[in-house]
């Protein structure tokens, strides 16, 4: 009896498991790309979100003025706009929209949709968390703060249905880059309004307009289904202007939070691309499956924040000593595989290559600490290094050991759950903290603007008038080369003060199946979904 039941069970399992083709094989036939996307997006309304996870999906559903190029970060293929021009100072821009542009429900896409989108995101009542991304526009900040109420004074105007005029408060030579961020995307005015409270409220916060079934987009794909923690399914948008060249029938985003699970799923043929390969697995997979492993630079930096308002840590010498005691190469070789050691905060991007100010120098570190009054770490207070409970314990323990072995300084580790970690950082209720920052666009300002006095992302207590003057000067500079030179100068000043200790430029380690074509390394990692194809 038992034996019969067992053999039946085995048979059933084999039937169920053995012969069935893998998800990837089925998806290859259906031309559906399955990508790991780490976690669920907070929302698909581009005006309510701030993250990279959301960006990956929104870029499939909506398209900005300028599109992403699959091969390089530095090309600006036309998106919703076919051409654009600007004045020599880079402050006045005119975008010419394509005449055949339409929403996925057939409604024509016009410049008014862009103006509507900027109006909505900047509307004080909407309280969009990332309205700051539009502050490049003239008067945008004043409107967002409620200081002016007439949106006509803000620098975004529809000259006619197909001409969008942008006036900026200062020169922004990299504006085409910025417009690729979802905060600059159009939203379907007719749909957003239809779902709002009285049918005409622009600032209504939660309406179901971005739900599956309601969301109308202008991107290569349309939203089909969102099941929490399970998948977000998109299908090809036949009304996309370039639909003829879109080879995929859909992209499925899978929120796999556990990257070990994701890797296993990939190897079992369930995913075309993973979000992240856990560092301990990098070497193993490079040896066993070199055809899958991708290691590419990315614009994100791992660093350590120092609370410069704490006694002792307020001394630049102490901070520099802590920084020089970190053997970044050793960390990147053995723990943060795929990252590159760095001595500054901004990764190289295009023409901007900042100097690396700090590097591993144990003797120099010791001397500096002694100069600060703590020879061999004697009398140095017991500080704590804050980390989030999901952070890399190995990194922190290695840092702890480096400080102890080089400087004789004992730093305790203080792990916290994510919410408490964020809260402690923002309240400056910490000594030292392990942190990271991901750039939003390819310009050093995305890494440098946050270290000003009242910026909510500074969280170090450090500020400098000279630094802010340099940034302001750069902001008014319309010559791109001089502008970058000023940034470089500012970055040097910031790094010499070391309110943050840079550790490494993050690399993207992930797995990609070879049948995914036209997927190239990109710094911002914004692979245009519409340009990809599956060729098994």
């Amino acid at each position, binding site marked *: 009896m038992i034996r019969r039941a067992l053999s039946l069970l085995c048979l059933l399992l084999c039937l*169920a498991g053995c012969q069935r083709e893998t998800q990837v094989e089925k998806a290859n036939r259906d031309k559906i790309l399955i990508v790991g996307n780490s976690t669920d997006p907070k929302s698909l309304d581009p005006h309510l979100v701030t993250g990279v996870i959301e960006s990956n999906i929104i870029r499939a559903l909506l398209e900005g003025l300028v599109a992403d190029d699959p091969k390089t970060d530095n090309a600006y293929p036309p998106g919703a706009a076919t051409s654009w021009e600007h004045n020599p100072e880079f402050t006045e821009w005119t975008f010419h929209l394509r005449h055949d542009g339409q929403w996925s429900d057939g409604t024509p896409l016009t410049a008014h949709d862009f103006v509507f989108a900027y109006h909505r995101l900047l509307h004080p009542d909407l*309280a969009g968390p990332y309205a*700051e991304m539009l502050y490049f526009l003239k008067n945008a900040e004043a409107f967002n703060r409620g200081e002016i109420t007439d949106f006509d004074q803000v620098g975004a105007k529809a000259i006619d249905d197909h001409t969008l005029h942008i006036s900026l408060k200062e020169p922004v030579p990299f504006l085409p880059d910025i417009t690729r961020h979802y905060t600059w995307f159009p939203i379907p005015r007719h749909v957003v309004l239809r779902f709002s409270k009285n049918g005409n409220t622009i600032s209504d916060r*939660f309406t179901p307009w971005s739900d599956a079934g309601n969301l109308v987009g202008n991107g290569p794909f349309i939203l089909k289904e969102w099941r929490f923690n399970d998948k977000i399914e998109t299908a090809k948008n036949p009304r996309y202007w370039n639909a003829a060249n879109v080879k995929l029938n859909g992209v499925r985003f899978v929120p796999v939070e556990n990257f070990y699970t994701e890797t296993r799923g990939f190897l079992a043929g369930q995913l075309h691309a993973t979000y992240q390969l856990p560092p301990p697995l990098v070497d193993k997979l490079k040896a066993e499956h070199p055809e899958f492993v991708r290691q590419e630079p990315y614009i994100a930096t791992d660093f350590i924040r120092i609370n410069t308002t704490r006694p002792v840590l307020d001394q630049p010498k102490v901070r520099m000593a802590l920084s020089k005691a970190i053997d970044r190469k050793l960390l990147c070789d053995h723990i943060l595989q795929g990252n590159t050691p760095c001595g500054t905060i901004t990764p190289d991007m295009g023409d901007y290559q900042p100097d690396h100010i700090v590097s591993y120098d144990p003797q120099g570190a010791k001397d500096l600490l002694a100069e600060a009054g703590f020879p061999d770490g004697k009398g140095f207070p017991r500080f704590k290094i804050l980390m989030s409970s999901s952070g890399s314990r190995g990194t922190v323990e290695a840092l702890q050991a480096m400080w102890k072995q080089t400087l004789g300084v004992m730093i305790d580790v203080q792990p916290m759950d994510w*919410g408490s970690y964020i809260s402690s950082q923002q309240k400056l209720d910490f000594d030292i903290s392990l942190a990271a920052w991901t750039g939003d666009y390819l310009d050093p300002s995305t890494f440098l603007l946050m270290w000003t006095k009242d910026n909510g992302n500074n969280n170090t207590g450090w500020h400098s008038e000279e630094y802010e003057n340099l940034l302001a000067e750069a902001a008014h500079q319309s010559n791109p080369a001089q502008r970058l030179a000023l940034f470089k100068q500012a970055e040097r000043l910031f790094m010499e003060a070391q309110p943050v200790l840079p550790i490494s430029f993050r690399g993207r380690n992930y797995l990609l199946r070879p049948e995914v074509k036209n997927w190239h390394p990109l710094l911002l990692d914004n692979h245009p979904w519409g340009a990809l194809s599956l060729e098994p």
Partner: protein
Amino acid sequence: MLKVILSRLFQSILVMFVLYTITFFLVKALPGNPLQGDKAMPPHIMAKREAYYGFDQSPLEQYTRQLSKFLQGDPGFSFRLEGRPVAEIIGQAFPVSLQLGVIAMTIAVSIGIPAGCIAAARKNGLLDTLSMSIAMIGICLPSFVTGPILAEWLGRALKLAPAYGWDPAKPATWFLPALTLGLAYAAYLSRLTRAGMLETLSQDFVRTARAKGVPGWRILVRHCLRGGLIPAVAYIGPAFAGIVSGSLVIESVFQIPGLGRHFIKSIETRDTPVILGVTMLYGALVITANFLTDLAGIWLNPRLRKAA
């Protein structure tokens, strides 16, 4: 009997109320702001958002407002999945957890209890040592270890079942997660059953029966099973409530869209409406499970039955 049920119902309402209140204020006391993402926003935007959610009111006002909504059957909207109804989130995840939990518990009971009985009947014999050693392995190895091992071995190497993912319509995908979860509980159940059975087997009436020449297996099934199951049943109740309201480790190891991941995420992000929604659901399950356990206890113990 009716009186017992009615009085229990009244107590349950009280328990739910106290649970809601304590949880609400505990979550309010947590450091951190649910509206705060990993990027800071300017204070004027934050202030608007806080006003929108009524965070500018006193905690007591927020409590009464939310409670009265909750009593009307509206658990509100999530902060983390911004604007999504809590009912929709739980409505998607709970059936998954329930299905996984029921299958896993079935595996646990159908392996654990017979194993415990056999071990008790063959006390200190080979079968006993063997089955209890296996059970101890199940107890010593946490599911974040057994899960990946089973997935790599049965799933990826032997291709017996999918090593990843969950599909309510494809029973093959249930196999590994339910097995991992079920085996852990089976181990506990077998140990408890064995202990309970041994306790009963040494009671006087068993000796009498044995002296009268009643066969061993018959004593076991007819006379001891009831009393012997008491500890196991006391354990199953809350364990069942826990297992069907989601288990983070299994969900994360096998990529299952269950309640456990939502729950942990909601706590990490201070997503009060979701925390309260899941807690109340779990509370209701615990109350029901413990009530059923108590009823089962009465049924298993004839003398209590008389008293009731």
